Every structure is written in C-alpha cells, then in structure tokens.
C-alpha cells in the first residue's frame, strides 16, 4: 500500500471515514500480557450490548468502512463473538481480528475457516515459549501454537502471526519468519509502544538503537512482512518502508473501545485523546465533527523536527510514543533514529509520565488450559 507525498498530504487532512478502524470488543482477557496496550483483563460492565454492537456495525457498513480490525482484550471471550462477526461479513464489512488463540479449538477453527471476509492474527511475542511467555504468561505460547495447528488443520488459509518487537526477540526475526512459513502464515511485526501496561516496562523492553537498525534493514528486504505501518519512524534510516509512513491518528485511523469511547488511535487510550462516544450520536458524528479529530487534521507543526532533513521521511514519528514517555507532541519520537528522542527524553518536562486512563488489569495469576 504505497502512497506518494501528495496523497499523504491529503490523508493528513482526514478522510470521510477511517481506512483502519480498530474496535476492541472487550476489555476482558484470559491473559495478562505485561505490554498490553489497552491494560485489559476485567470485562467492563458498560461494554456495548449485542444490539448496540450490531447497530455500530450497520453504521460502519453505511460509512463504507471496508473492514474493521477487531481486538480486545480477547475478542473471542465475548459470547456473541461469532454473531457479531457474521453480522459484519453479511454486510461485506470484512473482519480482521487479533487473538491470543486460547479459544481456537478444532471446532472454532473450522467455523472460522468457513467464514468469508474473515482474517485473523494470532499473537506471540517470541519464536520460543521462553521468550514469548515472559511477556504473555506461562503456557500462552503453547496455546497459540495449538491454535495455529488447528487453523492449519482446518485449512483456514494464510492467517497472520503477530509479534510485538522487543529487545528479546529482534534476534529471532529469522526464526519467526521460518515459523510463519511452516504454517503458510504471514508474519506481522509491530512496534512496542509505551501505552497501557507497557508504560511500566517500555524502557527495558524496547529494542536498542542497534536492534532498530537491524530490524529496519531486515524489513527493507522483506516488503511482504506486514507491519501495520508501525515502524515509519525507522524510515528516516534511508528508503521508506512499505506503507503510508504517517501518523494516521484521527485522520485515517481510530479506535472504538469496548464501551464505545472513540480514541484517536489504538495506542492512545487516554482522556486527552478521547473524541467522543458512539452511544451519543453515533460513530460518524464523532469521526467527522469531534473537536479533537478536527484539530489532528490541521496542518502539523514539525516542532523540534522542522530543521531535520529527514522530517519528510518520518514525520516526527508516533504521537502515542511521545505522549506516554512524557514528551511534547512537537518533540522528536523517543526512538528517533538520529538519537534526538533520547536527548528530548533526558530533558523531558513531565516528571511523571501519563498513564492510560481506563485500567482493566486483573490482579490474579493466569492459568491456561489445553484445548
């Protein structure tokens, strides 16, 4: 999905409807990943009802949003999960959902495989149980692999394996690629953002500068590896990575959370980036008219990055990464490839970094049963 710069400028002024709409179906989760960007765990009692969720899907269809990225929490925990998926695909709203795989047994895999316009990604955070379970919890890697086995046996087709890149798994890139190939799956790598529970461990878990360089070089040679456009800050290393290479928050991207709150992107679940709620006057009204989204679509101020020759390559990086590390939005990305972010971090004005507003974390250990 390449785009020239004039098109990118148009995107920065916003679209009639998002291209990439993420909808977290529930905050409930049977895992407790240490880096969870939505601080999920417990179900929120105000969660959208089945009827409300269906009305939202109808509105998504009417806005000609072609597909929705469904996540959570663990979306398959919702008892109406398949009902909602079927309601969406019946209206040609494609569903791409993200799962930890624990609910994909033989029966579920067959049902998923028989549904059109459905795409899914199973999350792991390393090429082996030790590395992945350190983040996602004991038994989670084995559970994800069982899900992949079921999907393969059910002939689901090329599902995705989704990995958040950390200091511990950048060295496993080739192994991850081999694993994906063994399943006929597509590898999807995304950036560790300091959002949600990851605020706590981002400093220790994020790839080193050298690792980010290795990752960039690896990705440049593999345009078929999906990234959700999440490493555009690394495009300042040289030729741009495949994708739009811009921050789409409130412009081409947004998040609807389980209680219907609309945020500028999946990585800024915080009061400051809340645009409205779908329960008030519907999603379209929030997308088109919210003061927050209108301001995000104003021409950007390059701020401290304005004098850098690479601003056009990275556009100053990720808004969420800056916000949750206590930087100003006009500061460089904390992982700026030239190290300007490190300088900004050292000089950061906010002693206490912001926390994600809603926190649904559970405080009890997680046990994963075999399926």
């Amino acid at each position: 999905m390449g785009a020239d710069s004039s098109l990118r400028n148009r995107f920065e002024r916003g679209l009639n409807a998002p291209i990439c709409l993420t909808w977290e179906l529930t905050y409930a989760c049977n895992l407790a990943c240490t880096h969870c960007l939505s601080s999920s765990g417990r179900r929120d009692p105000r969660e959208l009802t089945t009827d409300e969720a269906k009305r939202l899907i109808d509105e998504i269809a009417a806005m000609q949003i072609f597909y929705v990225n469904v996540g959570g929490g663990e979306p398959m925990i919702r008892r109406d999960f398949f009902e909602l998926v079927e309601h969406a695909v019946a209206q040609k709203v494609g569903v791409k959902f993200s799962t930890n795989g624990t609910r994909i047994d033989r029966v579920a895999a067959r049902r998923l495989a028989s549904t059109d316009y459905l795409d899914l990604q199973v999350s792991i955070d390393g090429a082996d149980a030790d590395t992945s379970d350190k983040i996602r919890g004991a038994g989670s890697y084995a559970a994800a692999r069982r899900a992949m086995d079921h999907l393969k046996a059910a002939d689901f087709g090329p599902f995705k394996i989704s990995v958040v890149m950390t200091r511990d798994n950048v060295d496993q890139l080739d192994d991850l690629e081999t694993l994906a190939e063994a399943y006929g799956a597509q590898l999807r790598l995304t950036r560790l953002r300091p959002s949600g529970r990851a605020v706590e461990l981002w400093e220790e878990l994020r790839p080193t500068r050298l690792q980010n360089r290795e990752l960039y070089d690896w990705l440049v040679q593999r345009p078929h590896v999906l990234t959700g456009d999440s490493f555009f800050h690394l495009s300042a290393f040289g030729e741009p990575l495949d994708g739009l290479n811009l921050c789409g928050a409130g412009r081409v991207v947004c998040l609807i959370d389980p209680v219907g709150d609309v945020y500028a992107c999946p990585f800024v679940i915080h009061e400051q980036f809340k645009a409205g709620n779908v329960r008030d006057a519907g999603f379209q009204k929030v997308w088109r008219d919210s003061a927050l989204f209108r301001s995000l679509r104003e021409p950007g101020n390059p701020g401290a990055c304005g004098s850098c020759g690479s601003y056009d390559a990275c556009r100053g990086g990720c808004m969420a990464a800056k916000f949750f590390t206590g930087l100003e939005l006009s500061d460089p990305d904390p992982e700026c490839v030239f190290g300007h972010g490190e300088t900004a971090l050292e000089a950061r004005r906010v002693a206490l970094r912001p926390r994600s507003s809603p926190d649904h974390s559970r405080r009890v250990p997680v046990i994963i049963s075999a399926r």
Partner: protein
Amino acid sequence: MFDPSQAWSLSPEVSLRDESFGALAYHHGTRRLVFLKSAKLVEVVTCLDRFESADAAIDAVVDERDHPRYVAALAALAASGIISGR
C-alpha cells in the same frame, strides 16, 4: 493482460468510497486497498460498464492527450483485480 480495446468493468468484489482526492477501492476477495488518485479516474472506472471498450470510456471522460496515462492507470487496476474484463 490489459487490452483497452476490450470491454471492462469494476469487479463485482470491489467497493468504491469517494474521498476528496478521488476514491478508495477495496477488493473484498484479495483484501487489497487501492487509491484512485483523481476524480477523473473514478469517473472513468465507474463508467467502464457503459462502453464497449476501455478506450471509449476514457475518451468520453478525458482529453485525447491524456489517453495513454489513463490506459496505464487502468492497466494497473486490472493487474490488481480492481477492474475485470466482461
């Protein structure tokens, strides 16, 4: 292979959404998203099914000197399955 002397149309699996720059085209089968980067190109694509050839559809919408550019744009759309022969 795209032959502009043949009859074409928007593929049945494709949805179009108008945007200020032109339109987004989404192929539900391949899940590919393609940008139609001008209103004129959108006009050409949406009127393909009313003409006996892609050439004729292009001529109905754009100046003759722009014709080759639109043939190239339609060839790219044919390659990604956004338009198909009929």
